[in-house]
């Protein structure tokens, strides 16, 4: 995709060159700074190139920034590297969001747009703030500051978030409902949906976008149905007597239904159906949907995953996370609470000389307040505990104003709020909160943005009294502050993007989001679905399913089986189609057919859960299923 590559190249130049220029202008010592900044920006851009196929690149970028920030603490020689810490959080988060975007699906686009808005707001405001600070320096500061390299660096710093902003705004544009017809493929919201349509339906869509009139005519399509000879005398054509028209009419109907299901629109005949030959059909697009083939719309098509499976959605590579993942998720809130309390207490210990008893009280109160909402997580006092915890965490630092400056109390209060918010956001994936998730989302939506903004402004614009005793440790806490901010922003973005959903298999029952799932399926289909989900690799061969349905009897004795000649295969194929449709509609995942359909006999069908679907299976369930199958075989 040339436009995408061109854009990324321009981004790299924009990001890297000014840093280098600023370094050269600033002098010999800052030259290193400029070079390193350029490298970091270039690596950031490289990540955007690689994100299509690798998460490793993103991890490497984070590591690079952390290492460089770590070096900056090492000694006075690298003191100028403090500047690097101001690189948070724009480019990093733009890349984060790109990754999240990649895995987002149609149903999550509303949330995704909200998340993008938060990022755009934060980065836009932050850029303006940084530029304003430089202008303030120019207006009120000394002449040495104005016109110096520091000023140039400052302006660059303010403008360095523009690429990230552009990236995010384009992403948000991409979340609009555009249907693109490009080089034989049909793309809806940057997902390839060509395989959902028959060849005739694809051609109808292509005809529609290629014509300026925006109408589909029967005679343009008839050549595809071997019915061109019927259209020789178009003046006297009667649709009701034309076999080609009948084929096209059926395709148009089918296409219309598919477009309606996907929320794109519907195919509309003229008011007087007798005029169908002359006037043709048009597509009534849903609000906000554009059907186009404009090449500029392919700008971010490079973000489409390399291989689209089964057309409609992008499934996870593996939808079955390991046990440690659940343990990690379950333990994360406790780690956040304890880690946050320890770090904030350590900072307080460094910055102030509190009496031992007061400090001890602080540590205990901090840990207690952060943990209380976790302790009461399944209790009827949960909401009360959360409100108590929230208010306590905000006002606790103000009890120390006898020993610390008020402004420091504000900062500690902000840090507490940040830790509390991260804690709550990390709990949400576990669905352990009894609140209505939608209501919780609405409540958190603005609160997170304002918190991020205040924290960011406080770090940049408020001058904190730092005691001499703090020494170099203040640098450590500076880094921690920025990391906390990045974590908060990342949590917020993930919170707005893909909400994890839990599929549970307990005692032969499938629960999705704590609701019984298989009530709409026949008994046989239910068993196939359970078998798919319970199998470790999610693969079932044609023979396996046949055994399951025939009470363990293997009727597929012939190894040279030809599915096209097998009635059993035809029946199973229909069942798989029903299950696939069911899984996709409910948002669980999909069933992937082998590339060549006859290979289902040897390669089998593969169940794949979507990226945000977590599957929980009890060992008991697996054993009971296996026992059931074995008993069927024995019988």
């Amino acid at each position: 995709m040339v436009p995408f590559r061109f854009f990324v190249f321009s981004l790299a130049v924009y990001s890297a060159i000014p840093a280098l220029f600023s370094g050269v202008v600033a002098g010999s010592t800052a030259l290193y700074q400029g070079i390193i900044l350029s490298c970091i920006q270039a690596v950031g851009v490289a990540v955007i190139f690689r994100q299509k196929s690798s998460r490793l690149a993103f991890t490497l970028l984070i590591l690079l920034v952390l290492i460089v920030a770590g070096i900056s603490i090492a000694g006075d020689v690298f003191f100028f590297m403090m500047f690097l810490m101001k690189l948070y959080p724009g480019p990093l988060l733009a890349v984060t969001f790109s990754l999240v975007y990649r895995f987002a699906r149609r149903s999550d686009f509303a949330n995704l747009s909200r998340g993008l808005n938060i990022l755009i707001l934060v980065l836009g405001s932050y850029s303006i703030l940084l530029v304003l600070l430089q202008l303030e320096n120019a207006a009120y500061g000394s002449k040495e500051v104005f016109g110096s390299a520091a000023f140039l660096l400052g302006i660059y710093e303010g403008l360095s978030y523009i690429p990230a902003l552009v990236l995010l705004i384009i992403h948000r544009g991409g979340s609009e409902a555009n249907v693109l017809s490009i080089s034989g493929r049909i793309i809806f919201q940057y997902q390839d949906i060509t395989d959902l349509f028959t060849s005739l339906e694809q051609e109808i869509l292509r005809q529609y976008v290629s014509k300026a009139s925006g109408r589909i005519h029967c005679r343009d399509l008839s050549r595809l149905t071997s019915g061109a000879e019927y259209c020789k005398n178009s003046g006297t054509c009667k649709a009701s007597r034309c076999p080609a028209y009948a084929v096209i009419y059926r395709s148009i109907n089918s296409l219309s239904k598919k477009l309606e299901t996907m929320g794109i629109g519907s195919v509309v005949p003229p008011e007087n159906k007798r005029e169908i030959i002359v006037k043709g059909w048009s597509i009534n697009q849903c609000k906000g949907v554009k059907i186009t083939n404009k090449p500029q719309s392919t700008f971010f098509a490079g973000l489409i995953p390399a291989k689209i499976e089964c057309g409609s959605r992008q499934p996870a590579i593996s939808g079955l996370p390991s046990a440690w993942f659940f343990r990690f998720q379950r333990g994360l809130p406790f780690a956040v609470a304890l880690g946050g309390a320890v770090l904030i207490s350590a900072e307080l210990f460094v910055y102030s000389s509190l009496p031992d008893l007061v400090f001890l009280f602080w540590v205990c109160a901090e840990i207690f307040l952060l943990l209380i909402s976790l302790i009461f997580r399944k209790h009827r006092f949960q909401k009360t505990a959360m409100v108590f915890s929230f208010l306590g965490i905000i006002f606790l630092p103000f009890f120390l104003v006898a020993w610390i400056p008020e402004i420091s109390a504000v900062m500690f209060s902000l840090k507490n709020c940040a830790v509390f918010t991260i804690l709550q956001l990390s709990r949400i994936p576990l669905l352990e909160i009894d609140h209505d998730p939608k209501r919780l989302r609405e409540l958190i939506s603005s609160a997170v943005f304002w918190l991020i903004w205040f924290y960011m402004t406080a770090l940049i614009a408020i001058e904190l009294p730092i005691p001499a005793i703090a020494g170099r440790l203040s640098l450590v806490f500076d880094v921690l502050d920025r990391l906390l901010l990045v974590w908060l922003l990342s949590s917020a973005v993930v919170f707005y993007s893909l909400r994890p959903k839990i599929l549970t298999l307990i005692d032969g029952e499938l629960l999705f989001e704590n609701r019984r799932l298989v009530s709409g399926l026949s008994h046989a289909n239910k068993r196939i679905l359970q078998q798919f989900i319970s199998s470790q690799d999610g693969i079932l061969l044609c023979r396996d399913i046949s055994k399951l349905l025939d009470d363990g009897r293997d009727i597929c004795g012939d190894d040279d089986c030809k599915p096209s000649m097998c009635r059993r295969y035809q029946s199973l194929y229909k069942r798989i189609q029903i299950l696939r449709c069911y899984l996709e509609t409910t948002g669980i995942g999909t069933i992937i057919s082998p590339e060549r359909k006859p290979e289902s006999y040897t390669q089998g069908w593969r169940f794949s859960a979507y990226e945000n679907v977590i599957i929980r299976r009890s060992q008991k369930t697996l054993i009971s299923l296996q026992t059931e199958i074995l008993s069927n075989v024995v019988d």
Partner: protein
Amino acid sequence: MHKYPAKAAVFLVIQTLCAMIAAFFFFTHRDVSAQLNTGTLIVWALLGIQNESLAIHDQRGNIYISTIEAVFFAAYLSGGVLAAFVCITATVLFSFRVQDGTIRHALSKPFRLTLFNHTHFIVALLVVDTIFKWLVRITGGLLVLPAFLTAPVFFMVSCFLNALFYYFEEDRDFMNYLIRVFRPFYMDALIASSGAIIISLTYPRYGILSSLFFITPIIMARLTFLERVS
């Protein structure tokens, strides 16, 4: 001619009298000369006008969503009661909205609504000023903590007076209206109000420029929201 409810008229008169007394108190206060900074007054007046003019119309409740209470409180923290008073007056008189292709401003609205809008903010300012000063005194001269505690009061008093006014004028259920107005927006309004504290912290160094630390995200949020709605 439609008969205007007597209890609503009495309420408006009482509120107007309270606002006049408050205004008299503000202008005759001994600190008022120290607050007379023309630049600050103009900046806050302009910020108030633009904030209210960019208010978002919510069709579900036929109400306008804005963070104007937060702006008034920020003006109060940075410029004192005089700046807040000027900000309120300028906002009510000069803010305008484009709705359905027509411009709505103070002169095109019914007078009683303009009067209510102006006076209820003044009364809320009086309450906030009283509570803030009392809190500063009992906390031994702290500023941020009292500001933090007082910030939500402006929004709450404003909601309370609105509910009371519609209760008298249209016989609407007081608690129902209060909850309907308060519940969806209290988190935004409270946090945005608390954000005014940023100004109190940055004002000593950045002067009136500190208002931009607060206003910038509001404008950005408003523009983003408007774009999304459109």
